[in-house]
């Protein structure tokens, strides 16, 4: 049976880790969008989206990720996807949006990527 959709946000070393669990369609998109929204107060180095436990995702899930990516880009804050499952990879490939995202295999690698991006931005 379906796994209840659940999004949890934790902050580790200034990086927001958004862990997404369960099935996502249009009904769950709002909760996901809320969790992926940038906090009003700055100080976040970036966002990592942990997708390891997504059991179903549709085009609304993709739209939510793309909207979050766009907002992060505008604010100059990195957004990195981690642990993309075969199901999600297929969705990204079918819609040809895989190239829009930075993807890493694990959450720690994603966190390192965020820190590396942030420090390279500071140097510029």
């Amino acid at each position, binding site marked *: 049976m379906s796994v209840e959709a659940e999004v949890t946000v934790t902050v580790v070393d200034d990086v927001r880790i958004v862990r997404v669990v369960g099935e996502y369609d249009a009904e769950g998109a709002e909760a996901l969008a809320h969790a992926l929204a940038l906090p009003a107060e700055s100080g976040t180095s970036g966002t990592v989206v942990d997708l390891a436990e997504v059991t179903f995702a*549709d*085009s609304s899930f993709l739209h939510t990720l*793309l909207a979050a990516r766009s907002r992060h880009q505008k604010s100059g804050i990195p957004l990195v996807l981690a642990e993309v499952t075969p199901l999600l990879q*297929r969705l990204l490939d079918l819609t*040809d949006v895989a190239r829009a995202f930075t*993807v*890493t295999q694990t959450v720690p690698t994603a966190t390192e990527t965020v820190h590396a991006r942030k420090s390279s931005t500071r140097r510029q």
Partner: protein
Amino acid sequence: MNTTDTEYGRLQPPFSAATARAHVRELLLARAPDTLPVTIDDVLLVVTELITNAHRHGGGLTAFDACLTDDTITISVTDASPELPRAVPHSRPLAPGGFGWSLIRRLSRHVAITPVATGKTIEAVIDTGTRTGPAEERRHRGPAGLH
């Protein structure tokens, strides 16, 4: 399941996309147990996109049916609008909107739209036989690298 199930694949609206997914998954597991997991995912994606379209752009879902043959499943969704679905223009591939219909077209062997008195019926025919084409290659390619 708390919805009326008069025939194998028929569901009486209203119901959520999640209910329809559970229903079609059960149908495939029971009556087409050789269907590959990736194919089941594809079918459930088409089911979801069709239902979401009916709710968002079709004035509401009025009928739903899933019909199996030896090597296909046909998902039929009827909504309350005669307007035809649209895909996102190629000029703006990353703009929000339009992915749903593209996915339905991409994953189906055949899509037919039939006007009915109260709106339209969209039938998507999806292959359930063992697949060895590009879709399988895509699935095993793994995550994209760092950019």
